[in-house]
């Protein structure tokens, strides 16, 4: 009897331990599988996204990171108090408390303020009341979809069946858009992750067409989506100004159905062929692609104990985009938040943008001034295939243009008395980019590493880089 009791107790203990292990394993799996949430921010200064973190069951975001692209911002932590300066506005936050002071006036957050790893975290659902006090203007927060619009930046759209052809659906947007488009049986999805596209009066639009029956607007996880329901394969055509998207029957699908399609290229990585010299692709909406190297778990070089390369490259890339756009050069930034992007992802995105020039931004603690690099191509182990370029040497046909841009940028940096050096480097993704491409590695001007984070130094170098690109824009296919 006693032995039996002991055995049942041991079995019970074993079950409890096994259950605990299984529960911990299941919790780990659930947490590991949960997708990273992002807050998309749209403003006249910049569009960007920020990682959302969860604290005590609520969504939080770093306030300093949110304000950084919008103006001059700094913060200081002293004991439990975090003091934030945005332009001339002072915000005071206390760890563990929801009451804050903005310019001496009290306000309430919806939950406690957190300070972790030099980041001041505020609950997202408080942004609609907090930000107007700091920014001095209206903000619109879409809580369910994690989208934040600062000022009047929304992009509206209309959709209508073309009068002459009921199988064509035409979208008109109030600003240029560049959605990612995907299809599945009976659906075409357009995802707008970079544009503040807003819902029409009714989220579901129905059409008097046998082939395209409806378009439905939705938004979630920092992006807007339009799902078009159709019973034929559709393809999306973009107007040169990026404000009109026409969905029409896919000619390729029709050709495939009649067995007249050309054979598919071999299954290897290939880059699209660049446009002929002097030609301006009709679908080009961005002239320049700026790539903030590293990001997410890849911090790049640890420039100093408090300064990672990935943060400096992001700040430099944002400045370069601003400088290029100030010169009338439409610019796409590849990484506009602390996100992981593989080298292949960067090259794919750059090639798909069909821009004229690609700029990779790096930062370094060694040496001084700015180093510029064009690609040092690897030993060619595969050949181009018809109109497609070998992935590993896609840069080959653009090397001349790359060197011309590098020379122009170097000349502009010299004009600004910045020490500059031009080299080649075995550096991806330069090799995989089918357009003029170069990398900029910014080192401090002297021995002081903190200069890498200095707004004045960043402005000086990126302004010169933008001037160098603008000087050769005609050679690269853009009207001066």
């Amino acid at each position, binding site marked *: 009897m006693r032995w039996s*009791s*002991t055995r049942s*107790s*041991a079995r019970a*203990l074993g079950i409890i331990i096994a259950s605990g292990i299984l529960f911990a394993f299941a919790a780990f799996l659930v947490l590991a599988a949960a997708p990273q949430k992002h807050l998309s921010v749209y403003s006249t200064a910049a569009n960007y996204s920020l990682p959302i973190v969860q604290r005590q069951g609520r969504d939080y975001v770093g306030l300093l990171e949110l304000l950084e692209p919008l103006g001059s911002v700094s913060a200081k932590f002293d004991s439990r108090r975090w003091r934030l300066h945005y332009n001339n506005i002072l915000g005071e936050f206390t760890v563990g408390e929801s009451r804050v002071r903005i310019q001496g006036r009290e306000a309430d957050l919806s939950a406690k303020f957190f300070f972790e790893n030099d980041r001041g975290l505020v609950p997202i659902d408080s942004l609609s009341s907090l930000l107007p006090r700091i920014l001095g203007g209206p903000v619109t927060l879409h809580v369910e979809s994690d989208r934040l619009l600062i000022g009047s930046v929304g992009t509206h759209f209309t959709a209508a069946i073309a009068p002459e052809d009921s199988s064509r659906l035409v979208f008109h947007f109030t600003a240029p858009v560049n959605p990612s488009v995907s299809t599945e049986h009976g659906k075409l999805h357009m995802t707008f992750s970079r544009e503040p596209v807003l819902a029409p009066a009714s989220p579901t639009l129905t059409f008097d067409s046998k082939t395209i029956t409806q378009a439905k607007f939705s938004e979630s996880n920092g992006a807007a989506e339009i799902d078009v329901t159709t019973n034929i394969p559709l393809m999306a055509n973009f107007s040169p100004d990026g404000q009109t998207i026409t969905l029409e029957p896919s000619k390729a699908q029709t050709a495939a159905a009649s067995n007249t399609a050309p054979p598919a290229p071999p299954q290897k990585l290939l880059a699209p062929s660049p446009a002929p010299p002097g030609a301006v692709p009709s679908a080009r909406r961005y002239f320049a692609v700026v790539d903030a190297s*590293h990001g997410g778990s*890849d911090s*790049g*070089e*640890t420039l100093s104990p408090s300064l990672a*390369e990935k943060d400096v490259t992001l700040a430099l890339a944002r400045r370069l985009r601003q400088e290029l756009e100030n010169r009338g050069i439409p610019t796409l930034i590849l990484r506009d938040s602390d996100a992981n992007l593989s*080298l292949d992802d960067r090259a794919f995105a750059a090639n798909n943008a069909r821009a004229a020039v690609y700029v990779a931004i*790096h930062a*370094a*603690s*060694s*040496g001084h001034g700015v*180093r510029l*690099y064009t690609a*040092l*191509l*690897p*030993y*060619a*182990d595969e050949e181009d295939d018809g109109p497609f370029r070998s992935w*590993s040497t896609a840069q080959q046909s653009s090397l001349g243009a790359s060197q011309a841009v590098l020379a122009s940028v170097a000349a502009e940096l010299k004009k600004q008395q910045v*020490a500059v*050096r031009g*080299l*080649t*480097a*075995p*550096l*991806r993704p330069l*090799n995989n980019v089918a357009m003029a491409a170069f*990398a900029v*590695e910014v080192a401090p001007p002297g021995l002081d590493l903190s200069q890498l984070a200095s707004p004045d130094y960043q402005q000086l170098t990126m302004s010169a880089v933008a001037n160098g690109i603008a000087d050769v824009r005609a050679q690269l296919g853009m009207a001066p």
Partner: protein
Amino acid sequence: MIPRHLYIGISVLLAAVLAMTIYALRMRGRAVATSVSPSDTRPVAPPAAGPTEQVTLFVAYDDIGMLQAHAARIPLPSVRQQRAEELLRSLLAIYLDKSSPHPLPPGSDVRGVYLVDPGLAVIDMNAAFADGHRSGILSEELTVASLIQTLSTNIPGIAKVKILVEGKERQTLAGHVDLSGFFDAAGINQLAAQLQNSP
């Protein structure tokens, strides 16, 4: 409800697990410390016997961001593959010295060099070399250019070079310079020429 002797048994087992964990951690720490100990750094002594030969080593200098050609006399074996390994070890010896112009991580070593006809050289470096390498485009490319240019200058017939780490392909050396492809020896020769010009 659980009998006392069961509590005692589990407690003893947990104590044993804890003790073994502490012991294992201490042993691991000792092993790590041993592997990165400065006393283990190369240079590897050259062969005691054999004639010395004049070679050209391309040495990186971080302070000026340049590569400089140095003439040296080192004993080299007659077998081509072993000559290649000794050449690179002589180069690493300079980088691992206290007065190194381009410090490499302690314990950096060449695991082997394989010369595969026609014209392919495979350099297999150890993990310490890559894992502790300083990050930065220029810093990484000085290392790679130094190794390959030294090899291709002194071992005729090398057209392309592959760098492996612990026998495996690696994407980048330390976050920048691409190690996934084959280096074109002619391209590296041009890069070495660029790196020998003062900035």
